[in-house]
């Protein structure tokens, strides 16, 4: 059932259960948010998404307020913008730094972007800061730089709601608020599975991808190139973006719109990509020599030897002496041509793939 409401003087339709923020975003209204992740339950913590609602005494948070028929909402008045700027100044004033490497995580530039949009540097407010970075956590994947934490709890919520692991939670209150594991220990000793979802939803880079930061050696201030592909591990088929800098893979971002994963990944998909550019990779063809060892060869030498071997075995033992095993890891073009090689080439069905083991 659809209803009608008014946003910034325009009548819009919506369905039961939609929030003001969702409807406004659908109509290209730019409402700032920091604690909002569309995959998570509305939280209303950062208050940046406040809007004026006719008849309400105070502004309301649009992420938590469900629309009702006949509502009249203004998203960008001078008063609202002034509130937002003050809120942002308070947030910015608390953090050691706001400009972080885009390699820290998918959303790590959100706070800096809003600071720029609202032209605030946080210097009008001085005082206490919050968050203590967890420098003793020597895990190789997740940087826990809580001095940049703004207590939006996106990490805690993504861990609980999306990943279902409940590995991290909130300790203390106010300026002493701290994201922590049970008994304030290392992630390794908690329920954390190192899926990296917390890194990717963090809007300030308080949680960062240590591996990407290492891979880049130094600060990469420009956004790396992204190539959309599918994770190379299990059969779920999660969509990822490979981050590259000068032909080097520097990290992985989950694709928030990936049809199979909607932004989720596991430790392998998130962090186990660097086998690709490992020094152990085969770089040239190899041929077994008369000394019994494998030696480097040109493509022509190796392909001729490969073909000659099949020709010889075919001549000596017949076409049923040749067998093909296709990969469950290479793309379908490889599997298709493997079976075509056997069927169109030798006229047999002596072909299989690795699914029986």
């Amino acid at each position, binding site marked *: 059932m659809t209803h009608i409401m008014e946003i910034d003087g325009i009548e819009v339709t919506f369905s039961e259960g939609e929030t003001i923020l969702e409807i406004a975003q659908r109509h290209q209204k730019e409402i700032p948010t920091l604690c909002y992740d569309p995959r998570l339950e509305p939280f209303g913590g950062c208050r940046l998404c406040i809007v004026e609602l006719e008849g309400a005494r105070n502004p309301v948070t649009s992420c938590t307020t469900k629309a009702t028929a006949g509502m009249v909402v203004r998203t960008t008045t001078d008063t609202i913008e002034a509130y937002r700027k003050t809120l942002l100044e308070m947030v910015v004033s608390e953090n050691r730094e706001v400009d972080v490497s885009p390699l820290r995580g998918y959303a790590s530039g959100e706070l800096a972007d809003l600071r720029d949009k609202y032209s605030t540097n946080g210097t009008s407010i001085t005082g206490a800061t919050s968050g203590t970075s967890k420098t003793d956590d020597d895990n*190789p994947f997740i940087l826990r730089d809580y001095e940049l934490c703004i207590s939006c709890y996106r990490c805690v919520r993504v861990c609980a709601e999306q*990943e279902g692991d409940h590995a991290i939670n909130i300790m203390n209150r106010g300026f002493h608020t701290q994201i922590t594991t049970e008994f304030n220990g290392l992630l*390794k000793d908690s329920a954390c599975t190192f*899926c990296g979802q917390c890194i990717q939803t963090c809007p300030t880079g308080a949680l960062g991808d240590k591996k990407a930061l290492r891979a880049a050696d130094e600060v990469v201030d420009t956004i790396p190139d992204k*190539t959309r*592909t*599918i*994770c190379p*591990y299990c059969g*779920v*088929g999660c*969509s990822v973006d490979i981050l590259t800098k000068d*032909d080097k893979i520097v990290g992985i971002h989950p694709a928030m719109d990936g*049809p199979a994963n909607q932004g989720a990944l596991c*430790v*392998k998909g998130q*962090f186990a990509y*660097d*086998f*690709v550019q490992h020094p152990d*990779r*085969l770089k040239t*063809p*190899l041929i*077994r020599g008369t000394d019994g060892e*494998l030696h480097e060869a040109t493509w022509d030498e*190796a*392909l001729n030897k490969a*073909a000659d*071997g099949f020709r010889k075995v075919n001549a000596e*033992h017949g076409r*049923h002496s*040749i067998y*093909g*095993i*296709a*990969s469950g*890891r*290479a*793309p*379908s*073009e*490889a*599997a*298709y*041509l*493997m*079976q075509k*090689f*056997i*069927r*169109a080439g030798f006229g*047999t*069905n002596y*072909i*299989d*793939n*690795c699914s*029986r*083991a």
Partner: protein
Amino acid sequence: MSNPLVDMQKPDVIFCIGTNMTECHPVAATGLKKAIARGAKLIVADPRRIGLAEMSHLYLPLRVGSDTALLLGMAHVIAREGLIDEDFIENRTTGFDEFFEHISQWTPEWAETITGVPAKDIETAAIWYGSTNKGAIYYTLGITEHICGVENVQSLCNIALMTGNVGREGTGINPMRGQNNIQGAGDSGALPNNYPGFQSVTDPKHQTKFKAEYGREIDLEKGITKVTALELCGESIHAMLIDGENTLLSDPDREHCEHALRALDHLVVVDIFLTETAKLADVVLPATAWGETDGVCTNTERRVQRVRAAVPPPGVAKPDWWIICQIAQRLRFEGFDYHEPKPIFNELCRVSPIYAGLDWDRIEKGEYQWPVPHKGHPGTPMLHEEEFVNGRGIFSNVHYRDPAETISDEFPVWLTTGRRLESYHTRTQTGRAQGIDYLLPEESLEINPADLERWELTDGEWCKMSSARGSINIKVKATNRSPRGTVFASFSFADVPVNLLTGSGYDPVTHTAELKVCPVRLEPL
């Protein structure tokens, strides 16, 4: 999977059997966690107290290899309690009367004697699954890697058919595929019994089609499976082309496998690393890896998705398709004149009815799940909605069989194998990823703490584990994840080659190895 991945949030009763999903398909498992948070009930049947078991509302710790008995017992209870879906059985299935007769003898009390699961828990599981309109089954290799893998799957189909838990949202029989393109490899026809698109090689219609397509006579009978081919190496099989598989570590009975590959006159291996298998080859051809290759993969929910190159390959490595074409052209085979992957995929679509509505450009965003029978068809997220591929769902009057080898005085412990969250297969990839060692530095044998004394073992010390095929040394780790009398190890680490021990038997139909059951003996070192 019969149902799409998004469906995993929707069942009211979830039955997971033989799947360690939180470790092997972690992102899929997040869907189940959401369903549970919503109030769904989770039943987990697994010999080991895995992560899913910890989350479950009912845990059925069955003895390894006893799945068919458990499922027969559940079918008995579903029938006895009148929880069958009569309309569904009447309209969509065949053979129920005989099946009804068949299961009357397989009581939960009988199943308890085989599985070790209390009869009352089998009853509860059956009643939960039988009473819901949204019951979904998820399974993995814990069901199929047995000599009775086919009976196990048929048993799952039986309980789904009798309760009508098929073809609707939040239901279905859902196998989780283990490799990024293992579904695509089968779709593409890399099977001894099927042409591309699962068109049987013994069907005259398909024979005629591919004879015309490939311009030559092709055998009218099925080929042999990889398992049979490895057995025949040196006898009637003399040359192999292996693309991207570390056969030596991933397959059972490593010694037999190594012996087989060494007996070949000619072995060509295409891979990205010099794997244990590649080291045996006469010719090793360097392939481009993930991130360097453009192509198409199909996931476990039959979703056809593009993979894309982001970086150039090392040295002179080339895509697999290019390598195969080059060998084929040198053998003067017709039809290998491709210069890019796009026309290869489009040819696969043209010859495969399940891909007929697809082409390279159409799958840009990955929104199609096969079958896509014609252009303009939206794809098929859910199978079996109106009817089954073969018409009616068939009840199978299965019988329980013991594993190929059972425990004895000589080999008194059950070994079962699998994967772990942080490592993948034979670690050619994860073993070369920085940081993974921090979480999983080495393999260890998971054994129940109460069993340590019995076998004179010490937690953290090494032991010798032997089967009828060989022995390996492995470090002992005491954990309640393993039940008494059953131990677990992954096959991922080359220095602890667990597949030296496995290989007791194969499913006679699928030739899938019984990697999940292997009687062993444990001794201190």
